[in-house]
């Protein structure tokens, strides 16, 4: 196999310089992020400061964020009511999402130690759904096994993670995406797509050539040692 060709640092810098991107393009990426992630007041300020028309009305951002906050503080009931207030079809047409919310509610009951309530809820609401799909069933079993461990720290990672803040965020993220979809808004942050595209592109190019890598976190190019 012939050695990989190297692209000299100056040459690479020139290529970067040649890429066409305007501040307005980048501003819209920022706005996309602020809207989808629900930074309402930041989106409002940015719309002013960057002179950018808002892509959605800001109130819809707020109601999405109320729902997210409810989930993050563990108030699943409130979140479900708010989602239905916004658009009842979201949960009606999305059984997986509804199951996810019910599961979260079960987790919150267990977290609070309201065991009998949790059991009742699981038997009445979740078990019938578990029969509908093997996927639901396995999730239900996983959740129920939380009860087997007196202290959550003793549980295996795969189970105790259900009690982590990340689990709440995950549920909140799924609900957020479903709402955005119902608003015909993009639900994937463009910036995430860009990061993934970079990972993909650098991975493929790394197999074929030596070039200057970017430290995205620092925003600076790495002075690679070119052979």
């Amino acid at each position: 196999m012939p050695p990989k060709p190297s692209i000299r640092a100056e040459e690479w810098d020139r290529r970067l310089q040649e890429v066409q991107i305007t501040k307005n393009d980048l501003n819209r990426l920022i706005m996309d992020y602020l809207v989808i992630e629900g930074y309402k007041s930041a989106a409002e300020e940015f719309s002013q400061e960057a002179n950018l028309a808002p892509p959605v009305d800001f109130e819809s951002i707020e109601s999405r964020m109320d729902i997210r906050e409810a989930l993050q503080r563990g108030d699943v009931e409130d979140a479900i009511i708010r989602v239905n207030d916004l658009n009842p079809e979201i949960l009606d047409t999305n059984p997986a999402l509804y199951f996810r919310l019910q599961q979260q509610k079960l987790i919150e009951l267990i977290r609070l130690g309201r065991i009998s309530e949790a059991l009742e809820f699981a038997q009445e609401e979740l078990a019938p759904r578990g029969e509908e799909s093997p996927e639901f069933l396995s999730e239900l079993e996983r959740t129920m096994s939380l009860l087997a461990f007196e202290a959550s720290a003793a549980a295996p990672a795969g189970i105790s993670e259900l009690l982590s803040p990340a689990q709440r965020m995950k549920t909140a993220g799924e609900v957020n995406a479903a709402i955005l979809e119902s608003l015909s808004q993009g639900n994937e942050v463009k910036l995430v797509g860009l990061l993934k595209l970079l990972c993909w592109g650098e991975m493929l190019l790394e197999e074929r050539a030596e070039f200057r890598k970017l430290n995205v976190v620092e925003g600076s190019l790495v002075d690679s040692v070119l052979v």
Partner: protein
Amino acid sequence: MTSHIPIPATSSSGRAPSTSRSPFSSRSTFSSRSTLSSRSPLGFRSSVALENAISLTLPFPPHRSSSADHRSFEPRVIRAASDSSHSPCQPLNSRSSSILRPAASQSIPSVQHSTSLSFLRPSYLENSAFRQLLLLEQPLYTIPSRKLDSMHTHPSALPASSDSDDDSTATPPRDTVLPPKEYSFKLPTCWSDQDRHNLLNVSMSGRELSYQGTSCGDKDAAAARTIHPIPPACGIYYYEVEILGKEHKSHISIGFAGHGVKFSRLPGWEPNSWGYHGDDGCSFAAEKNGTSYGPTYGAGDIIGCGIDFTSHRAFFTKNGSFIGPVFENIGKDIDLYPSVGLQHAGEIIRVNFGHESFKFDIDSHVQQQRNAVWNKILTRPIDSSVLEGRSMSTTGKTTLSDEQSKGVLNKLVLTYLVHHGYAKTVRAFQKQQPDVLAAQDTDIVMDDTIPETGGMDKDIERRTRIVNSVISGDIDSAIAETKKHHPVVLQSEDHLMLFKLRCRKFVELILETTEMKKRIKTLKESRAEKRRYDEIGNGDGEFWMGEEMGMDVDDDAVGLMSTSPTTIPYNAPPLRNGREKAVSPDGKGKDLSSVDAAVQYEMALNTAIAYGQELSNDYKSDTRPEVRQLFKQTFGIVAWEDPLEAGGSVASVVSYEARVNLANELNQAILKSQGRPARPALEMLYRQTAACLLQLGTMGVGEAAFADISREILES
């Protein structure tokens, strides 16, 4: 040679599966983007100096609208290097032959086939990120380079917004550029009159092949190929062949062949050739006995032949129906040409490389593949070693957790906002950071990231104020504030920044005098007009009344005030004497104001010249070429009666854009003096990604054609 590593299709991002949403599904964009009616695929700009460039208008195809993409293409003005030897750097390319290779076959221009070139790039190729690099032919005409002058910045183009400063100082508008010549790829357009068996006749159009032999055996097979190979940057390439002969099961092979494959053999028999045969419906990949593949074909059938560079497989269609994928690892290491072989007398075929619409719905097929590639990219986890610029091969894969990704994103957004001085947004953004996040562990990506708010606010405000001063033309304030808060910026590089600012100050002074002069002229003209009117309308009582009441002074004032906003293209500082004249109660005010204006003009001009002389004196010993050059250009504007109308290199010194560019330069210099990068990380991220993808495209990585950064990230 090229190894492929499998790409994990599973997502560990923990997000809801996004399969239900195509990345192209309609979504409301932020605003209508009229400026983006045309855009280069990866954002290219010719690196060649404009002076070396020629302007051309290429007949780019009007975009045939496809279901997912409704943007329209327009003919665009492009720039290309006039000097073909000027290619500062060849792209690294393992398959150099696909890039403008001066091969023997190409050195003979295909003039005899000129009629075949009168078609547009087929619309399915619009799916490729590199669409604008895919050329049907080199333009046959050129325009002398002096034409370019008129393409320089137009000073009249005024951004309405106050936030108009733009980082793309070195980047011309998208619709005026063509990718550098070294990156373009030629598409197959006709059969080669050279690269064929001599029993085959190529028609004048270059589309038809007819068999001239008499015999009917394998020994008399005759093949032909196109002049140009298929660029993998197409992503997917497709052509159709119509069978015009009489046989029901034609002894024909349709497929692909590499360079140097014998023309006395049907495609598929020889190494580096692949074909689908009409007599038995078999597929052949370098084999004597084919593999059962599809139906037989013959007279009247239209056979489509495609190659997918993302999967390295081929596919065929018959009369508009998809037959199925076939062949493995095709087109990986060698260039391939569309190739057809015939072996019976009387056989004729006609090819369609996009000359007319295709029988098969290739557009949707390619669109599906494009979506599939893009979705595959989106389901990939974000790798932390990539984000830190380390090589994946040495560190192995480390997937970022959701929280960590979020940390990276927040930092990208925050540093961007800080960079451009969006102070209020920064404050609101930080206030809204949920507690969950703040409490998250901050190891890998969040370490020293969020600067403390208090000092930063002031810093941003100050920097924004300075930048806005430059944009509004108030250079003195900008210099004073920079001197006070960021003295290093003005001093660095032997006071280069200060020099640039002072040059701009001189420009502003000159522009002021130009405006005054214009007003004097308008004044004189209106007075002459009035005098004529007075003489003609001598008997008009009403007019007399007006004159008696001293209305003329007001008229003058109105004239003065109302002409100015239309003739001043941007907010030049208002002239003080304008108002004095307007309130002059004297009936003879018009004469006075005229004299007054002339005196004021004289004074302003003297001020400007004095400033220029002082500047000249301060920098007379500075022999740096860029200083000399800017100095020369700056003083050159005096030669123009109205520099704003002059265009060309004068505009590049006096225009509003020049101010904005200077403001941006100053912003970057201040940031740099604070140890911050000149470009925000977000911008670097975009640039790096685009450059990687382009490099992949020029290296023949077909998948990169469907990773369309500007379409996916900026437009959809």
